[in-house]
């Protein structure tokens, strides 16, 4: 259960947004929308604690995320604009390393890669992958993660329509299993699960 209270962010004394409040309960999703530069990425980074907010509080299961950071982080999965792949490692190794702490087994990993359509190139260095394939690789993490809260920044970028469908189903399933989802995207989403819209364009003072 994530709750955001009157969050505000400023850059170089310029107020990006202010008074952003929202609560997200299990099985719900939040679609952050807004014009380019309205502060979507910033908001997501603040939620993850990568950027400092100017004011406001964020609490996870009723506990402030700054004071109970580790508990929060163990429930969190963040995928940003950059898709955290080591270009010199093969897809398989990339996945194993990022998922290292969960200790996923060989089959599970290869299965995940096959699911995102990288089965054939599991042992190709990531630098050779096309944009979309890179994106697919970082999305493969979603398959393995046990995190309750997924924070995705424009996940659909560079994906072809099949991959997009696949991702949609995955997110749907995550929410059906009482997972929480926060994502930004300029596309319009079609989920059957409850997804609230948070429009930063409006806040943009």
């Amino acid at each position, binding site marked *: 259960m994530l709750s955001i209270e009157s969050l505000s962010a400023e850059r170089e004394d310029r107020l990006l947004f202010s008074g952003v409040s929202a609560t997200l309960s299990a099985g719900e999703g939040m679609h952050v929308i807004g014009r380019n530069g309205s502060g979507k990425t910033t908001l997501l980074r603040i939620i993850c604690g990568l950027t400092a907010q100017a004011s406001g509080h964020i609490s996870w299961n009723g506990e402030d995320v700054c004071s109970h950071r580790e508990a929060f982080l163990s429930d969190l999965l963040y995928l940003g604009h*950059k898709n*955290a792949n*080591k270009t010199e*490692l093969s897809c398989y190794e990339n996945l194993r390393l990022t998922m290292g*702490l969960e200790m996923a087994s060989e089959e599970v990993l290869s299965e995940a890669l096959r699911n995102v359509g990288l089965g054939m190139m599991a042992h190709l260095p990531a630098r050779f992958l096309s944009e979309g394939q890179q994106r697919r690789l970082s999305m493969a993490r979603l398959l393995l993660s046990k995190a309750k809260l997924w924070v995705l920044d424009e996940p659909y970028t560079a994906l072809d329509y099949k991959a997009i469908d696949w991702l949609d189903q995955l997110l749907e399933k995550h929410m059906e299993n009482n997972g929480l989802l926060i994502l930004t995207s300029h596309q319009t989403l079609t989920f059957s699960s409850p997804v609230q819209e948070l429009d930063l364009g409006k806040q943009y003072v």
Partner: protein
Amino acid sequence: MSRALWILFCRDMALFMHRKQDVVTVLGFFLVAVALFPLGITSDPEMLRNMAPGAIWIAALFSTVLALDRLFSEDLADGTLEQQMLSPLPITLVLLVRLVAHWVITSLPIVLLSPVMGLQFGLDIEEIWVLTLTLLMGTPVLVLLGAIGAALTVGLKSSGGLVTLLLLPLYVPILILGSSAVSAVMLDMSVTAHFSLLGAALALSLALSPYAVATALRITLD
């Protein structure tokens, strides 16, 4: 917990091992740097012998700085650094592990190679021993301190030079300790003082630098 850290360690090792050329690179740079002294300065054996400790230490210092350049920069560029900051493990431990791994990859080879260099400069066994020991105790300090500078400058386009500029004042005492220890042996003076000081420096930086690095990273990632 400790298992997780071990995995993390392996991750870094794997990463490095994957670009074996890195180890080669650092080693090569070290060799080159050392080789430059006889080539550039003098070939007079006596003078070389006197220069040896300083020369080798300076070379080691440069290679450390060079390797530091890549400690965080790539991870920042490809987004893995963010992911690490978001790992549920205590960040200081994570960083400590990474630094240890970094040292094992980039500095240990130098330490192991230094005796050969010592021979090249005509040091005798005892001096070589001391040289290697000082490097063994000194290079970790260089890495630990250097990580602070690297974290402060990560993502800046002008890392290389700036890092060195930031770090030299921190490095000078270590450099002095290390090289003067060997010179002391040459003059048959005791080196216990040097080693105890080096040990103190090592312990201190081991204890403090992870926190410093974590803070610096938070600042620069913000």
